[in-house]
């Protein structure tokens, strides 16, 4: 299982709701249909107002994001229960979201789908890091390292949800651990 993620970060503030992660107008896309899954990725974080986020998470016309890591403030993923949100992030090639705190349903949907690792940080990394700078996230040692300065920031342990995401979501996890038969 991959436990280190390296690359440029995309930094957002507090209270990024699911509508900013994936605009309601794209909820006509069904995530279990392959080509619609890919389209969801192309619209990830598209609901962020341009006036606040001039640099876009997914460049116009692109299908994926160049930012594998999102850094956020409090209450990331609040609002609706739409699973389209973690799925859009995963489909855009996001690997992990590091936030001061997560909204409950979003956190759970990340785990259930296995799309991204939702990791809590301590303190306001969103005030320290800038969009585009390179970091390394290590979920074995629970650290985030800022490449430019070598500064190391502690992260909270994923704990009991980690093996579920490692497996690729709750169904895969249930099969691997014998809670469900292997073939449906």
């Amino acid at each position: 299982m991959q436990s280190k993620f390296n690359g440029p970060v995309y930094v957002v503030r507090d209270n990024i709701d699911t509508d900013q992660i994936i605009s309601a107008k794209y909820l006509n896309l069904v995530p279990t249909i392959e080509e619609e899954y890919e389209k969801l990725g192309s619209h990830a974080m598209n609901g962020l107002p341009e006036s606040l986020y001039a640099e876009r998470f997914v460049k116009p016309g692109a299908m994926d994001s160049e930012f594998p890591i999102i850094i956020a403030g409090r209450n990331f993923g609040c609002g609706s229960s739409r699973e389209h949100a973690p799925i859009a992030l995963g489909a855009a090639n996001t690997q992990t979201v590091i936030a001061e705190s997560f909204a409950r349903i979003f956190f759970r949907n990340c785990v259930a789908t296995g799309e991204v690792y939702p990791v809590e940080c301590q303190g306001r990394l969103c005030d320290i890091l800038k969009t585009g700078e390179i970091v390394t996230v290590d979920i074995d040692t629970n650290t985030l390292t800022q490449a430019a300065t070598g500064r190391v920031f502690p992260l909270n342990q994923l704990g009991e949800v980690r093996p579920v995401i490692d497996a690729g979501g709750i169904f895969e996890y249930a099969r691997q651990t014998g809670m469900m038969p292997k073939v449906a």
Partner: protein
Amino acid sequence: MTLTEKILARASGKARVSAGENIWVNADVLMTHDVCGPGTIGVFKREFGKNAKVWNRNSVVIIPDHYIFTEDSLSNRNVDILRDFAREQELPYFYDVIDDPNGHWKFDASKGLMKKQYGSNYAGVCHTALPQKGHTRPGEILFGTDSHTCMAGAFNQFATGIGNTDAGFVMGTGKLLIKVPATMRFRLEGKLQPGVMAKDIILQVIGEIGFDGATYRAMQFDGPGVASLSIDDRMTIANMAIEAGGKNGIFQFDARTAEYVDARVKKNGTKSTYEPVEPDADQTFVYETVIDLDKLEPTVACHPDPGQRKKAKELNHIRLDRAYIGSCTGGKTSDFVEFAQVLRGKRVTIDTFGVPATPEIVHDLQTTRWGDRTIWQILEDAGVRMTENAGCSACLGGPVDTFGRMNQAGLKCISATNRNFPGRMGHKESQVFLASPATVAASAIAGKIVDPREYLSN
């Protein structure tokens, strides 16, 4: 144990549960709609097999309501996916938009957005339709693929929103692993004064504890003040538990709950037995507060989140472009009645949109007369654009041709809905202010945010 813990203990077959424990619970009802239903069905089939059957036909309730009155072809297709599934699984509780079980749904924009385009089974906004159609029962567990599923906590049940993958799991097994939330207690005392509504209670509470103040927690509303709140009022409050991050909101059971539920299950022939939970003497709360209803004033949540609390009277400097009444939380009959009381004999000065939550509410408004005019006519006389196409409509923006959607940057709207993050009602550079139907009505007359108590007719 608290009300939430008692229900969860029962649903997991345990004598006791406590906050933080992970437990498997048996679901009584799983609800899904057109936005999350197709994905949930996709997960269910992928994981349990093409020919799998849902765990209990009578427990799966499917209510298309979100993107219905739009020409967007994918949205129309999604209703067809639900219909195919309901037919294949022989689901008795699929509230289709059209009457033909083998038909296809297509919205015809040439007929306009105002005249109804649904058949006799259509039920409207899921959370308002569930109780009306007899699917909410005290003491039960309801999971829904929608964050406002917590609205059913008004009926003394545990109700919470889940994602498609969890819902796919419930669909196949009837079970879900959940963490028992710690309970926060909001003890209501006194009685609301004229011009102050249930919406003001919950906006007050969210402002108090913050937009994430109830994350991973249950919000229990009890105390002597509950008795004076109608079922509609309780639904408004429980609905918005999620706006403080809550897992569920829950009310104590009383004669009003019984009267409502009994009438609805009887009318619709749904399961009529249930077992409410009563409060124990030994409840443990992580937070307790008393809300004095007499002291509450009309309250507004300002852009850009439901925790931005202000009093309506402090916001007279905010000029508005439009007003909106509708949604699960703010589009019930009693909401329109209060709205009409303020607007009767007056005129709105800004674009004002009215979207009843369900067809039943449309019917109520079109048949209840005040003097020689129906409430519907009184609102039209006042300049409100009332649509018969009950549903979510512009509450969550939706496809661009959605009735009432804010399609331009910079627009400011006062709305009786429940959520106001950037872009919620359409354009991501528009702004939404949440308020009670009375405050929305008075502000629609004034063209700016005002305290409705100055506009109450005697």
